């Protein structure tokens, strides 16, 4: 399985940034720029763009975490901490939730939001790259990544890092945009994402390019079966996925053997 990284004729590693081909080092910087730009209005934009449905997708994800009191949870690419708050309630004071994100602007927004909502004590905020996690082997019972994997340059590396830091029997849940097989829905979705999204971005964050990238990166992300194969290649067992909203989004689950 491949995550989209290639080696060009000149020997440089390239990958995609939306529909553009860029050097692998460049992608990380470009993605960082996107999220620095949208961090402040990330939550408002999420609600507007998805008509609030992203909350239902995250709610569905939580049902598959099987998280219990005392568990150690990593919410990678956790951004503004939507899932972290839910985990914090479930693991209780004896558990721990690590809210991790590569982007410090998103983390600052997330940390402030958690404090404003009275969440502290069992939460740690860490700036971390999914491709090289700063955690010991077998540390977590559950890892979740909601709408983050498509921005990772080397997805295979990230998946094997998740496998490394999960405890045996621990589970990885990746919620990500995917591919719908419904032709009508697909058509409507294309029109919406390439016309309405950049316009909304322009109006609310004065940045249409970041939202154009969002639409393009979704199209470049592996489909359900490919991502399932990547989970298996990274060493996960009992891999499965569940489509949401006709396959626009999919939740992938894998257990560390």
């Amino acid at each position: 399985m491949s995550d989209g990284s290639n080696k060009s004729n000149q020997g440089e590693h390239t990958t995609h940034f939306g529909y553009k081909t860029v050097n692998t080092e460049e992608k990380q910087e470009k993605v960082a720029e996107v999220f620095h730009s949208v961090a402040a209005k990330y939550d408002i934009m999420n609600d507007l763009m998805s008509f609030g449905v992203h909350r239902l997708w995250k709610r569905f994800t939580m049902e598959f975490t099987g998280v219990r009191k005392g568990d150690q949870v990593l919410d990678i690419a956790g951004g503004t901490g939507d899932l972290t708050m839910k985990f914090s309630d479930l693991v209780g004071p004896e558990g721990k939730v690590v809210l991790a994100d590569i982007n410090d602007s998103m983390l600052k927004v997330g940390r402030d939001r958690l404090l404003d909502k009275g969440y502290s004590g069992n939460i740690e905020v860490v700036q971390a790259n999914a491709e090289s996690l700063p955690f010991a082997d077998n540390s977590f019972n559950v890892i979740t990544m909601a709408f983050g994997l498509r921005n990772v340059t080397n997805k295979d590396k990230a998946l094997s890092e998740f496998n490394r830091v999960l405890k045996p029997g621990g589970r990885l849940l990746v919620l990500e945009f995917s591919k719908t097989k419904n032709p009508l829905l697909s058509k409507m979705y294309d029109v919406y994402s390439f016309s309405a999204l950049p316009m909304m971005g322009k109006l609310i964050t004065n940045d249409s390019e970041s939202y154009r990238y969002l639409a393009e990166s979704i199209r470049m992300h592996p489909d359900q079966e490919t991502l399932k194969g990547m989970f298996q290649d990274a060493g996960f067992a009992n891999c499965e996925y569940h489509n949401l909203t006709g396959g626009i989004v999919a939740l992938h689950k894998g257990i560390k053997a």
Partner: protein
Amino acid sequence: MDNTVIQAGLASAETAINKALKFDPATQAKLSALSPKVLALHFESPSFSIYVRFMDGIQLLSHYEDEAEAALKGPVSAFVNLARNDDKQAALMQSDIQIQGSSQLALSLADVMGQLDVDYEAMIAELTGPVAAHIIGKKVRSLTSWFKSTGDKLKQDSVEYVRDELQLAPHKLEGESRFTDIQMIKMDVERLEARIQRLKNTI
């Protein structure tokens, strides 16, 4: 059905229930005491499951990764009857609903739900203020009471019509007496059967 639609339904129901529970602190406290237990409700025809997780309030789930502490399984109509019945514990025991796992959890939940007493007037007062809420509450109470007494009277009249006018069903006491007789005959037959068996063994 798409999982997003299911989640939307569950999220709306959960919000409504938790909002209502805030106006019945006694029930809310009793439900919180059940935390972190999970009760599974498996409905038949149509077939679907809902999991109720007790926390500070409740959470409704469409899927639960572990085994629930208790599970109630039965037709939707049996659950509707249970919800309508005042004595929920007795109704649960007499219904077509099967209890699996901790029957104590199911029964204590039935007991808590039987004592549910949401202060709807306080709920309305949050939107309209106390004076309007009191007037609306009074009207709603008298309407509810009228519907209840009319419903009870209709039920009683229908029973009497079927039993006395049409003579299609026996009186409750008559039926009970007949069932007692049948039960006694059944027990006599069983005793006789046991005696015959004993005699056979001695011969």
